[in-house]
């Protein structure tokens, strides 16, 4: 998938003008808050349930190397084939080679963020193998060639007219319709045929339990279950941080994941695999490949602060509560992962350079951190990335150098503040500053500033202190 993180600001401004998206987004946060809170009520103490989930993910990240090794050993013992890939390219090459070796013409995909991260679809396509996304939302955005708008509903913002045109253009429907049900039904029929003849499927993994080697998938549509039932070859791609210590840990995370994802107690389908089908079974894969992808994560892991981002379980809750996402939607983030989740992950996976906007376009309001069932502390990570990049902006560096000299001394600080007052107040009229040419244009685009008071608090206090002292004397 193309990386467009550097176009963040321009794309955000474009999306701000998109009335339809804005309308949808305006309803998202309250809807999410209601449904999530409703589902969390089944816990006697929702905060304790979240704390428990956060501790599981913290534990999993802290013990990642051992857990991963244990998982791989157990999965292998179940008969799964474990493939390790350092990079997205390696992973793609493996899947292509497997498809070629098995002589499959196309593969079906279950929803999987990690394969989008790898750019698997494009890679297979250019090498002569079609890859069909089978989750309805993913299917639509694959035709549209856009990144997901929201991780939970990749195409949820699109008007039906756009989907109609898209389906017509790609032969999913023959007759135009804007009926939601008819469009869904058409996609079902189109993909059903693919499933029936399917030889090889590629899915993601939501969780992997170290104690058994089992992999978990969570979904509502059933496309992943079909991917695990119909074809003879199943490839399940997991980024290496998906592992959790035990089956019970996975079960509790499931509770939190579904509640934070769609407000359900449990999604329609959870499927758990330990190895391929047994001889004599009527269906299921003859061969199950579990592809463990690193793609930079082992490097991220060396940064003790940054690696806490690996706790993320991709529930999408932080998108739904983010006030910035709530204005601009998922496109401006410019890659697979959007919203606060993308703001913490993309800089790690793509580098801090081309993702600067992602960790600056935040008010650090903490709504994401508060809602996160995995315990990701987004604001803390943003500050960490900023720190790592601070030296790259010279002008700011000089400013803070000077600032640092002043801040150490009350005398110097208040002297400087005194000098500042007339400079700023030059722009004031009737107690209000409406603009300061060349300075803070962004602020003044829509806001005034009050003129600076005649005296700072500091000065007033000193004066009153003198008066009080004089009075006492």
């Amino acid at each position, binding site marked *: 998938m193309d990386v467009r993180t550097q176009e963040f600001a321009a794309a955000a401004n474009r999306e701000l003008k998109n009335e339809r998206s804005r309308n949808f987004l305006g309803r998202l946060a309250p809807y999410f808050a209601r449904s999530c809170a409703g589902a969390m009520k089944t816990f006697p103490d929702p905060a*304790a349930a979240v704390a428990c989930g956060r501790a599981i993910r913290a534990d999993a990240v*802290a013990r990642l190397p051992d857990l991963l090794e244990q998982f791989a050993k157990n999965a292998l013992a179940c008969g799964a084939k474990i493939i390790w890939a350092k990079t997205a390219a390696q992973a793609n090459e493996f899947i292509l080679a497997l498809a070629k070796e098995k002589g499959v013409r196309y593969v079906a995909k279950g929803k999987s963020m990690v394969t989008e991260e790898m750019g698997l679809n494009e890679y297979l396509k250019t090498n002569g193998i079609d890859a069909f996304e089978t989750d309805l939302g993913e299917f639509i955005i694959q035709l549209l060639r856009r990144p997901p708008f929201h991780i939970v509903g990749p195409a949820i913002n699109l008007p039906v007219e756009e989907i109609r045109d898209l389906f017509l253009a790609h032969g999913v429907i023959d007759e135009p319709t804007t009926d939601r049900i008819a*469009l869904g039904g058409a996609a*079902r029929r189109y993909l059903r045929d693919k499933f029936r003849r399917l030889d090889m499927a590629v899915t993601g993994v939501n969780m992997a339990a170290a104690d058994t080697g089992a992999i978990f998938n969570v979904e509502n*549509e059933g*496309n992943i279950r079909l991917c695990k039932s119909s074809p003879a070859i199943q490839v399940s791609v997991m980024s290496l941080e998906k592992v959790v210590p035990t089956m019970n840990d996975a079960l509790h995370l*499931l509770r939190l994941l579904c509640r934070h994802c*769609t407000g359900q107690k449990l999604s329609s389908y959870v499927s758990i695999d330990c*190895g391929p089908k047994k001889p004599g079974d009527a269906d299921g894969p003859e061969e199950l490949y579990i592809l463990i992808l690193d793609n930079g994560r082992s490097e991220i892991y060396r940064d003790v602060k940054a690696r806490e981002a690996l706790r993320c379980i991709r529930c999408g809750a932080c998108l739904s509560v983010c006030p910035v996402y709530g204005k601009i939607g998922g496109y401006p983030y410019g890659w697979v992962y959007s919203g606060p989740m993308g703001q913490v992950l993309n800089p790690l996976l793509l580098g801090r350079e081309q993702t600067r906007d992602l960790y600056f376009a935040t008010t650090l309001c903490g709504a994401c951190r508060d809602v996160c069932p995995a315990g990701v502390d987004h604001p803390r990570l943003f500050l960490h990335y900023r720190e790592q990049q601070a030296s790259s902006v010279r002008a700011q560096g000089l400013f803070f150098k000077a600032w640092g000299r002043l801040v150490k001394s009350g005398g110097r600080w208040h002297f400087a503040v005194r000098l500042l007052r007339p400079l700023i107040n030059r722009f004031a009229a009737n107690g209000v500053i409406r603009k300061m040419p060349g300075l803070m244009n962004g602020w003044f685009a829509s806001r005034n500033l009050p003129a600076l008071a005649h005296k700072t608090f500091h000065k007033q206090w000193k004066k009153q202190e003198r008066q009080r002292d004089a009075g006492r004397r």
Partner: protein
Amino acid sequence: MPDDVRRFILRKLKNAPAGTAPSRPPLPPLPVLSLNREELISLFTENLAEQTGMVYRAANAQDIKPHLAEIAAREQVKIMLAATDAVLAPLHLRAWGKTTGVEVLTAEDFPDRESYREAAFNRVQAGVTGADWGVAESGTICLLHDRDQPRLISIAPLLHIAVLPVERLVAVYEQVVQSVYADKNRLPAHFTFITGPSMTADIQGGPFKGMHGPRKLIVILVG
């Protein structure tokens, strides 16, 4: 070569500064654990209904077939694909079908995987399975897939009917998983949690059922 990659990745992870594993607070016991049988049943039913799954009650094994017949007639099921699991096998559905005009197929009826797939996707109107467990906390049924519980039966047809003996209804997932995954040498290849029919809300957030799998899920709770 692949082993090199494995070693490389694991070495790199292990060479990173060690993390301190946090203390793990226990999960306060879920209230569902203290429910009695009838309460479990009603919670199970309520939760499944939230996801538009339906629960029918059958007093005993004899009572299952009238339900099946009624459903088959209402949903215009002419051919159904049935599992041969421990719950369904004693019911002899094939013989029952002959008397009611419903053709009951099982995976064994097909000479190869291709013809079985073709039937599961295109010929049958319903899949019938037993359910190995029910979990009240979310209104979920659990299926342990094996030779007698093929995977496609409960996901390919538009209607899924599952028969759940009430003594297999438990409160929370852990009670199921602890027993299923207890023996490390006999782990199930495929285990599913099913909580309602196949659903999506991907177009404009509006619900659409039967996206890829069943449009309806009916659980017949026996006992």
